[in-house]
């Protein structure tokens, strides 16, 4: 009944899952429900290693439901409703697509499906159904409505799983369905152009939304949406190099979000506070956490010399090769705007002046550091050896039937447009850092340490510790003065979905009214129905 196969693609995703789960399960968490987590883990394994559509679907549903029950422990009922409605829709869409494919192809096994047998007219609806599934799971506009609330309200550690792995199930589905099962030659290109634009618009909107957030986890949730937007954009190019770039970004994003969510979970564990306006100046209390977060946001922003740059580089060069200039402009714009929320994240928590006292802070268990360390080390390693990722993806590309990219050394990331050497870059950074540090410390000028954090240049006045000096909330507020960003910030899909829910509520009331009508009306309706049938039949 259920068929499984070990594929390189499955290996990659399952490997990521393994890293995330193994490191996260080490963290002691009294609220965690272990059986459900194991069920979720197993379901992810089923998805990644399935080799027929029914198995895939079963895995998919188990994944949705097991995460539902995990989220249900902490989330509000509205959030749960949002989650389950959207994920049910995703499941139904997937089921619909599978049924249609199987009905015409006659088999559920990946290898035997010939999409050519599906009539032309049905190909677009099937693609659309799959789009809906992928968009809901990965949170592409306008289907990201459930994502942010769910991320915010689920358990702090589970948010990491949601962002790092479960959102990637949509990416996995994209690659498997479109490149392996259906095959790019049968697909309608313009539909995917629209999807690419949807992806990039998602990332722009989510970036600005992220900047204006006040809650730590909401910022990260929007940032997840934005990053997955890039992946979808580059996958929707339907190219081998696109898959390569998408996979690279998937890896980076998984690691980064693992690091960031666990880091923020640690901060919330220590302080019990969840807002930028309540935190600040934790740098000298938790330097290790700070440096880990710094590594995380450097990778998130895609700055050299860490691994984050490699995937951005691949995305850009892929778009350049396809001459998608406008798409590339939009991607770069979004990624340039992302610096602001990256900085807000690190400033709001670790820098600036403390807002409020530090009483009641808890000791952080060492287990919180492990996932962050693992992620950070891999990110640094990928920065030095950028072609490590390519080495990893080449079997996948080969198994999917794409051209394999070549690389001369692991240090160098080579594309048709350009190449760069990660080892040289990292070496240069280290060398310059060391030299300048030497210069600074050996200088004649003594650095006099300020004992009082409030000894700042404050226009001659003396700041009062009672007054807030932490800019955590204010950062990004000024964006509302810029007209096009204001448009983004003040509109949300919430109103749209609320409208739909109101509409469906109204219609259900109508249906209900229909049922509560008197018998004579029902008779009338039946008469009407048959009359219409008769007319139709005569025609």
């Amino acid at each position: 009944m259920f068929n499984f196969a070990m594929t390189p693609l499955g290996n990659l995703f399952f490997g990521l899952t393994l890293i995330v789960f193994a490191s996260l399960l080490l963290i002691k968490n009294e609220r965690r429900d272990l059986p459900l987590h194991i069920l979720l883990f197993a379901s992810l394994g089923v998805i990644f290693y399935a080799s027929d559509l029914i198995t895939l679907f079963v895995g998919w549903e188990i994944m949705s439901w097991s995460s539902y029950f995990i989220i249900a422990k902490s989330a509000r009922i509205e959030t749960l409703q949002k989650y389950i409605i959207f994920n049910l829709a995703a499941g139904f869409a997937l089921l619909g697509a599978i049924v249609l494919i199987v009905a015409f192809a006659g088999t559920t096994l990946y290898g035997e499906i010939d999409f050519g047998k599906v009539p032309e007219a049905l190909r677009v609806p099937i693609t659309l159904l799959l789009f809906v599934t992928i968009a809901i799971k990965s949170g592409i506009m306008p289907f990201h409505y459930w994502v942010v609330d769910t991320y915010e309200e689920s358990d702090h550690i589970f948010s990491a799983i949601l962002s790092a792995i479960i959102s990637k199930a949509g990416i996995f589905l994209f690659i498997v369905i479109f490149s392996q099962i259906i095959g790019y030659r049968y697909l309608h290109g313009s539909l995917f152009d629209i999807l690419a634009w949807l992806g990039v618009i998602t990332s722009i909107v989510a970036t600005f939304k992220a900047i204006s957030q006040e809650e730590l986890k909401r910022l990260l949730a929007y940032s997840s949406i934005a990053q997955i937007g890039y992946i979808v954009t580059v996958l929707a190019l339907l190219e081998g190099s696109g898959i390569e770039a998408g996979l690279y970004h998937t890896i980076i994003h998984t690691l980064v979000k693992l690091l960031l969510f666990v880091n923020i979970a640690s901060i919330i564990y220590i302080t019990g506070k969840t807002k930028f306006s309540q935190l600040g100046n934790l740098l000298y209390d938790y330097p290790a956490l700070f440096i880990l977060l710094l590594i995380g946001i450097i990778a998130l922003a895609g700055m050299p010399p860490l691994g984050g740059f490699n995937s951005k580089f691949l995305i850009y060069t892929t778009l350049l090769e396809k001459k998608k200039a406008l798409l590339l402009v939009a991607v770069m714009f979004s990624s340039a705007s992302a610096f602001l929320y990256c900085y807000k994240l690190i400033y709001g928590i670790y820098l600036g002046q403390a807002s409020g006292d530090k009483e009641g802070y808890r000791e952080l268990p060492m287990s919180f550091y492990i996932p962050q360390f693992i992620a950070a080390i891999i990110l640094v390693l990928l920065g030095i050896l950028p072609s490590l990722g390519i080495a990893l993806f080449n079997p996948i590309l080969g198994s999917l039937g794409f051209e394999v990219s070549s690389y001369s050394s692991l240090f160098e990331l080579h594309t048709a447009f350009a190449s760069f050497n990660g080892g040289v870059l990292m070496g240069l950074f280290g060398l310059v850092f060391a030299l300048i540090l030497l210069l600074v410390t050996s200088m004649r000028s003594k650095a006099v340490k300020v004992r009082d954090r409030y000894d700042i240049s404050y226009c001659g006045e003396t700041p009062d510790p009672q007054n807030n000096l932490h800019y955590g909330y204010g950062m990004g507020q000024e964006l509302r003065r810029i007209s096009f960003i204001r448009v983004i910030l003040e509109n949300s899909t919430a109103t749209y979905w609320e409208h739909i829910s109101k509409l469906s509520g109204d219609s259900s009331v109508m249906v209900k009214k229909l049922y509560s009508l008197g018998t004579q009306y029902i008779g009338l309706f039946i008469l009407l129905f048959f009359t219409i049938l008769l007319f139709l039949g005569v025609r």
Partner: protein
Amino acid sequence: MPENTQEGFIDQQKVLDNEEYSIKNTQSIIQKAVDWFRARSMFVLAYGTGCGAIEMPPIFTSRYDIERLGVVGVATPRQADILIVSGYCSYKTLKRVIRSYEQMNEPKYVIGLGSCTINGGMYWDSYNTIKKLDEYLPVDMYINGCMPRPEALIEGFVKLQDNIRNAKSEAGYIQYRENNAFYRANQEKIFGKNTTPTFEENFAGMNQ
């Protein structure tokens, strides 16, 4: 001490001119070079404490153009080398002036501008202004007059540069560090214990 003049006052100019009492010029070559650079580049924190602020725009703009001498205005005390106390200081202002001065990094110099910083000037009998600035801060250069002309200001700067370059007099910041108790006591006369907050801490850090 040089001989007193008939009025019983010490002739300050004679003190300055007297080789015996002027500070021995014992700069090493390196120190000479360092002092040359310090004299050549002066970042000024022009604190407009009083009327004197009105003669600041002319010296920084095109008529008198003090940037020729390497004198530039900066906004924050952290980068400044020279604090210009321009005119009388009310008690409230004095506190801010002292705080700005303490936030400056050594070497730092103070220019007192106008008669009010010397002896209270016009406001000798005012209840809210200090009379002698050098009871609270070490003043390296006084420029008298009400208003001092821009030319006088420029001359003050040139003299101060000369003093720094040739190490003619002991810089005020050293006095402030070494005779801190004196200044502190005078400041406390005005502010009570409620003086600038990071006063002690800054000096504690410096001695390390």
